[in-house]
C-alpha cells in the first residue's frame, strides 16, 4: 500500500480536503488511475499540474516509475526554472 | 534628406559608406559595414555594449552620428586581435572565464584596452570605476576585473 500525499489546495478542489490516501498500486500510472476513479477529474489534474516525489526523489514525468509496497508518494506542483 | 558620403578608417582600413543623417555610428558599423561585434544593449549610452574607440577616445557608438565619424579613426572589437593572435586582454578573459553569455564582452574588451592604453598599471578600484559604464548581468564583474589586472601585468612585463 503506497502512502500518498497531495497538496492541500489540490485536495481542497477535488477531494473535499482529504489530502492523504493509502492506495495499492505498483506504478505511478496505476496509482493516479485509482485516484481518478475515487475522485473524478483528479487524475488528469495531477498529470497536468503535478510532479511526483517517490521516497524522497522528484520525478517530473514518471508514469513508469516503479513503487515499492511501502513507498511514500508526494504530488508536488511541477517546478519550472529560471 | 539625402544620404551623406562618409569616409573613415575602421581598424586601420579606409572605409566609405553612405549614411542617412539619423544613422548612428553603431548602426553604420553593424548594418553598413557588417561589423556586428559591437552590440546594442540599450541605445541610450547606459550599458556600454556599443563601446568603440574614436581617435583614441573611448565612446558609446550608439550616442554618435555616423556623419561625425567622417575623417576619424575608429577601433572596434574586430580590430583587437592580430589575425588569429589574440590580444592579451582577449586571452585573459578566456583564461579567467571572465564571460558567460559574452554579449557585454566586446564592449568590455574595447573599454579595457582604452584603460590600459591610458593607465598601464591600474588599481582594482581604478579598473572598476573606468568600466562602470559597461554593464554585465552574468558575472558579477569579479572575474572581469581579475582578467584586466592580470592582462595589465602581462603587458607591463612584455614592455620591459
Amino acid at each position, binding site marked *: 500500500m503506497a502512502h500518498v500525499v497531495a*497538496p*492541500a*489546495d489540490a485536495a*481542497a*478542489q477535488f477531494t*473535499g*480536503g482529504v489530502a492523504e490516501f493509502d492506495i495499492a498500486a505498483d506504478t505511478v500510472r496505476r496509482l493516479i488511475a485509482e485516484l481518478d476513479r475515487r475522485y473524478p477529474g483528479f487524475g488528469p489534474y495531477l498529470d*497536468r*499540474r503535478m510532479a511526483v*516525489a517517490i*521516497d*524522497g*526523489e*522528484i*520525478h*517530473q514525468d514518471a508514469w513508469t*516509475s516503479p513503487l515499492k509496497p511501502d513507498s511514500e508518494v508526494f504530488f*508536488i*506542483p*511541477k*517546478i*519550472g*526554472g*529560471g | 534628406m539625402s544620404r551623406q558620403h562618409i569616409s573613415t578608417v575602421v581598424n586601420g582600413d579606409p572605409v566609405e559608406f553612405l549614411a*542617412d543623417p539619423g544613422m548612428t555610428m553603431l548602426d553604420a558599423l*553593424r548594418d553598413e559595414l557588417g*561589423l*556586428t*561585434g559591437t*552590440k*546594442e*544593449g*540599450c*541605445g541610450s549610452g*547606459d*550599458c556600454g555594449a556599443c563601446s568603440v574607440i574614436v581617435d583614441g577616445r573611448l565612446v558609446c557608438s550608439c550616442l554618435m552620428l555616423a556623419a561625425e565619424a567622417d575623417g576619424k579613426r575608429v577601433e*572596434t*572589437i*574586430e580590430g*583587437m586581435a592580430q589575425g588569429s593572435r589574440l590580444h592579451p586582454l582577449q586571452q585573459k*578573459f*578566456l*583564461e579567467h*572565464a571572465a*564571460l*558567460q*553569455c*559574452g*554579449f*557585454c564582452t566586446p564592449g568590455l574588451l574595447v573599454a579595457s584596452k582604452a584603460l590600459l592604453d591610458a593607465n598601464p598599471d591600474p588599481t582594482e578600484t581604478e579598473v*572598476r570605476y573606468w*568600466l562602470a559604464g559597461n*554593464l554585465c*548581468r*552574468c*558575472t*558579477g*564583474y*569579479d*572575474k572581469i576585473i581579475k582578467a584586466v589586472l592580470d592582462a595589465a601585468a602581462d603587458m607591463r612585463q612584455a614592455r620591459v
Partner: protein
Amino acid sequence: MTDTLDRPDVQTDLKIVGTRPVRPDGADKVTGRAVYGADFNLAGQLVGKVLRSPHAHARIRSIDARKARAVPGVKAVITGADLPDVATEFHEGGEAASNMRDMALNVMARDAVFYEGHAVAAVAATSAAAADAALELIQVDYELLNHVTEVEAAMSPDAPVLHAHLFTEGLEDVPSLPSNVARRHKIERGDLDAGFAQADVIAEGRYVTQAVHQGYIEPHACVASWGADGQCQVWCSSQGQFMVRTYTAKVLGLETSNIRVTPLEIGGGFGGKTVVYLEPLALALSRESGYPVKMVMTREEVFRATGPTSGSVMHVKMGAKADGTIVAADVELKFQAGAFPGSPVGAACMTTLSCYDIPNLRIIGWDVVTNTPKVAAYRAPGAPIAAFAVEQAVDDLARKLGMDPVDLRIKNGARDGVKAPYGPTFANIGYLDCLEAIKACPQYSAPLGPNQGRGVAAGFWFNVGGESTAAVHLNDDGTVVVTNGNPDIGGSRASMAMMAAEVLGVAVEHVRPVVADTASIGSSMLTGGSRTTFATGMAVIQATEKIVAELKRRAALIWDVPGEQVTWKDGAAHCADPAKEGAKPLTLKGLAGQSARTGGPISASVSLNAQGAGPGFGVHLCDIEIDPETGHATVLRYTVAQDVGRAIHPSYVEGQMQGGAAQGIGWALNEEYIFDRNGKMENPGFLDYRVPVASDLPMIDTIMIEVPNPRHPYGVKGVGEVPIVPPLAAVGNAVRDAIGVRILELPLSPPRIRATLDAKAAG
C-alpha cells in the same frame, strides 16, 4: 526510452572533470564573431516592429490599419485578428505548465489590452523609417477601463476584474464571482496553534518587494521566414529552441514539423527568455509579406513588455523556544502574476521554509493578476522573494534569542532524512556544510567599523531534471563531435565536452561541442531550472558510454577476441586476451580509421528524462556600510558558500555563484519597476532601472562545497539558481545590523534608509 540510472557509484578518480579548460566557443565571443539574435540577417529581410498599448487596461473596439498599409515600403500589417483564437490548453513546453491561450494573448492582444506595452499590432516594411511611420498611422479605438497594479489592491473585492472567466482555483468551495486571484496554494503540516503556544519568542513582519527584471543585456531578437510551402524557419536567441518551436506552433496553429528553429548565441536569459514574444509575430508578418522578417526589441520594449518577476506582499510569523528550536511558522505570500495567471508563488511556497526542519507550518500563496507585464521566470522563480521575508524573520528570532544567526540555522537546518515542507525527504544535501563553511570563513569574524553591519541568509532551490537528448559522433581522425539541444548561456558547451572527454579518456580539445537546431537533434527541454549540466550532461555521458561500448566491440572484432577481453582506458582499447600477448592498444584514431571495415560510422544518441536532480543549498554573508547622512549603502565584502554537488568546470560554477549574488544585491539595493498613476512604467531603461555597475561591488568570494548527487555519474547538482535566493535577505540583515532597525520593503534605496534613520532618531 528512459535510461534510469538506479544507484551508480559516483566516480571520483576523474582527470578532466574539475579542471578549468578554456571554453571551446570562447574565441568567437572575445573577437566579436559570435552571432547573437540581432546579428543574424537574411537577404531581402524586412524590418518588423510592434505597436504597443499606451494604456494599462482597455477594451479594443477596433483597429484601422488602412493608412498604415498605404505607407510606401510597408509589406504587411497584422493584428490579433490575423492570429488563431487559441483555445485554453496547458502545455509543458518550457516552464512548469503554461496556458497556451494566455501566451497567445500575451504575444498579441485580441479584444483587450492588460498592461501598458501590450502588443496590439505589428508591421513589416523595407526600412525602419517606413515601419515607424506605419505604426504611427495605425488607429486603435480603445475603451479605457480602470486598472490596478499593486497586488493587495488587485485582490480587494472592488478592484477592476481583468478576466471575467477567472475563478480562484484551490479553494475549498468554488467561488461564484470572478476575481483577480487566479489560485491559492496551500502547504500545511502539524498543528500551527499548538506550535506557537510552545514558542518563547515570536518574530513577525509584513514584507513588500517590487517587480524586478532579469536585466539581460541582449534585447529579444529573431529572424523568421515563412516558406511558400508553409515550411517555417526561425533564427533566434532564446533559452530553448525546442521551447520556441513548441510555443510558436501552438500560437500560430502549425504542425511542429513545419517549424525549424535554429538557436543563435543568447546574450543572457535568467529565465526571461523561456517564453516567446516576437517569433510568432515575425512568422505571421513573413507569411503575409512573403519576405523574411527581422524583429529586434528596444530596451524600453524589453522592460515594458517582457516578463519581470512578481512584486509581492508577504506576512511571516515564526516562533522558537528559548533553546533555539523553531516550533512554528506561518507564511502568507501574495504575488503579482501580471496580465495573465502564472506567478511563481507556487515555487515560492515550496522553497520558503525548505532550509528548516519545522514541525508546525502553514504556507499560503496567492497568484494575483495585475495590469502589469505578464510575469516570467527569473532565476529560482519566487524563491528570492520568499527568502527575503523568512530569512529576516529568522534573523529577528536569533536576535531575540541572543543566538548567533548561523548557529540558529544549524540547529534547525535541513539535513539528510529531514522531510521538506513540500514533501520529499532530503538525501545527500550539503546545507549544514555550507553553514559551517560560512562560520569558519575569515569574513565571519572580521571586525566591523562604525555604521557597518553583517548579515547572513540561506537559500534553497529544487533544481530540475527533465528531457534531454545528446548525440556523439566519432570523426575519421578519432576526434569527436558532441551535439545537444541546449543553448549555452554560461559555458555549458565546455562542460559537455569535458564530460564526453572524461568518458572517452581523451583531451577535451579533441571534443567539439555543438548546439543543434530543432531538426538536427532529439527534443530537449530548455536551458533553465539549473538543469543543463545535470540532465543534458547525463545524456552526453550515456551517449559517450555507448560509443565506448561500440569501440570495444570493434576492437574485439579487429583482434578477433571475445568482447570481455577488451578494456577501455585513457582513450584506447586494451586487449587482455593472453593469446594476443603484446597486441598494441587501439586508439580512437586507429579505431576510427578502420570503422568502415568494422561496421560503419561510429555514432550514438541518448534521449532521457533525467530523474533525481539534487536540490541546491547556499548560505551568503554580506558586510555593508551605511552613510548615515545620505542613506547610501556600500557592499564592503561578500562571501557565497554553496553545495554544488560536483563542479565540472569550477570557473563557471564560481561564475554562477558570483552572478547570482550580484543580481540579488541589485534587487536588494536599487532595482524596481516604478509605475505612475496610469500604470505606465516610469523607468524603462538602464538609466533609472539601476542594475549594479562594476564600481558598486567588491570581489565576491566563493566557497564550493561538493556533496555529490548519486543520481549523476559525476555527482552533478544544479548550481545556476540557488545563488540568487539568499542575497536579498543577506543584504537586508546586514543593513539591519548596521542601522539598528529593520526595513521591510525593497529596494533598500538611500532615500528609504535615510527616512528610516530619521524616524528612528525621532523615536
